[in-house]
């Protein structure tokens, strides 16, 4: 397929309480092979997916949070975090994993994947998409 579409995955659920966060990430990783214009938005409880230091030993469930760090290698490098969602939860970007990607055109320089956006900016981004995935 030679069509390139703008696909955005909207993540609004906390991890572990339900499977949506994990199975959404599985779609993103598989979808990366299709070379589309992909972005991820973390909104509402979805911001909790990226919180650092997750340790699932005590609940006996697989910790899938390290997989987000691989997104850059899959060329998924547009990750938007809604500021209002962080604020409501008393979180800042420092509480989240720092996701980056390496730019092979600039000698593999490490570049920023995470973008803090306001509700207005996120609303604009949503409006630019061809497809919005929600799980």
């Amino acid at each position, binding site marked *: 397929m030679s069509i390139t579409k703008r696909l955005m995955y909207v993540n609004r659920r906390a991890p572990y309480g339900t499977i*949506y966060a994990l199975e959404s990430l599985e*779609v993103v990783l*598989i*979808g990366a092979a299709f070379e*589309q214009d992909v972005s991820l938005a973390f909104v509402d409880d979805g911001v909790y997916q990226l919180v650092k230091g997750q340790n699932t030993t005590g609940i006996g469930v697989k910790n899938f949070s390290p997989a987000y760090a691989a997104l850059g290698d899959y060329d998924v490098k547009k990750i938007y975090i809604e500021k209002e969602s962080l604020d409501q939860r008393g979180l800042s970007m420092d509480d989240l994993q720092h996701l980056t990607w390496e730019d092979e055109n600039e000698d593999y320089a490490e570049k920023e994947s995470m973008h803090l956006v306001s509700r207005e900016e996120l609303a604009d981004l949503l409006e630019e998409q061809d*497809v919005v*995935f929600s799980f």
Partner: protein
Amino acid sequence: MKFGILVNEGPYTHEASDSALQFTRAALAKGHEVTRVFFYHDGVNNGTRLGVPPQDDRNITREWSSLAKEHELDLVVCIAAAQRRGLLDADEAKRHGKDADNIAEGFRISGLGQLIEVAIQADRLMVFGD
């Protein structure tokens, strides 16, 4: 216009699969194309042939199967989600050493790539879930 349909919840438990079915019927009745119906998360449970709903209620799996037959719909169950939840076809059962399978007529098991593909090919992706 081409529609792709994504169903995220199991039958009966959540109205999502009913809504998806009604939307699909209405789209076909208007002459639109439904390129693919993709079943993800608990949505894979729509594809079991072992369900025995009460006689005085709808049989959602049978409705999907007969709609698929009538309109040559492509009903695809996500393989990863299906394995986790115990929805297998004969090949999958054999591959994993299981002694039975339970997929219903008209459904096929395939990868998540089929969801991305229909999202790209269709004009609209309709998501039904919880």
